[in-house]
């Protein structure tokens, strides 16, 4: 690969980092952790502005300010519920996977013993307990996410 091609590859880092081709299990969890983190950060900004209207309602002694904010959000229809469902799933995954990362990075748990690198260089961090933790987290998050979805659909009167 020429240096020009390498430079081109470097510049397209953002797109390449989102291309899951060739990722191992840990890299999938890493990518999902980042995507859910961005979703949550953007929702947090919107949520703070949303709750600000409760403050305005209290300050003006006018609950209608809060209800008109809710009405504006409700005007999105099913999109509002889908958005909340995505946020709920993001929070569940980011929290559960974050706990795993804290066990890994702060307490050094779930990691394999360090060994000299030998071809084909399979990462020791992907030990059996690590894989088990990822699968358990995925199963619990999916179950809770389905439950959250049913709860939101029930709120719409769909079920």
């Amino acid at each position, binding site marked *: 690969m020429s240096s020009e091609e390498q430079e081109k590859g470097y510049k397209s*880092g*953002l797109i390449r*980092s989102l291309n899951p081709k060739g990722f191992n299990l840990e890299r999938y969890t890493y990518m999902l952790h*980042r995507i859910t*983190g*961005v979703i*949550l*950060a953007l929702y*947090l*900004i919107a949520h*703070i*502005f949303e*709750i*600000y209207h*409760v*403050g305005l*309602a*209290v*300050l003006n002694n006018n*609950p209608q300010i*809060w*209800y008109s904010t*809710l009405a504006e959000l409700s005007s999105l229809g099913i999109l509002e519920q889908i958005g909340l469902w995505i946020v*709920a799933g993001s*929070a569940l995954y980011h*929290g559960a996977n*974050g*706990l795993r990362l*804290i066990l890994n*990075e*702060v307490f050094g748990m779930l990691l394999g013993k360090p060994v000299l690198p030998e071809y084909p260089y399979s990462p020791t961090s992907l030990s059996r307990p690590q894989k088990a933790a990822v699968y358990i987290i995925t199963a619990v998050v999916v179950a809770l996410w389905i439950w959250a979805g049913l*709860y*939101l659909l*029930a*709120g719409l009167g769909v079920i």
Partner: protein
Amino acid sequence: MPSQYSLLKESWVMILMYTLALIMIFVLTFHLLLVSPLTGKSFDETLSYSFVVHNLTYYRIVFGLLLYAAVIHGMNGLRIILLEWIHPKRAQWAINLVIIALIAVLLAIGTYTLIVV
């Protein structure tokens, strides 16, 4: 003290990220429980004015803790992602500045809301 833990180094910021994440595990779970079916209310009922104001007033300290932990953890997370993708020094300096300003604005709005409620 090892050099990698000198004051204002990113290693301290990472320790802050882990600490805030652990705090949020508890306070965010509590927040989600307040809008869950375990309250005995429907999702719409948990958004009623009286219920929201009651929660914000009664659990003001918990929500304050959540506000500060979530804003600092979340915005610093965005900063880390942006810094890994955007490398020119000037751009990184601008990203740091914008994120600090964003944290200040969000904390000001959130704190104001918690005080007036």
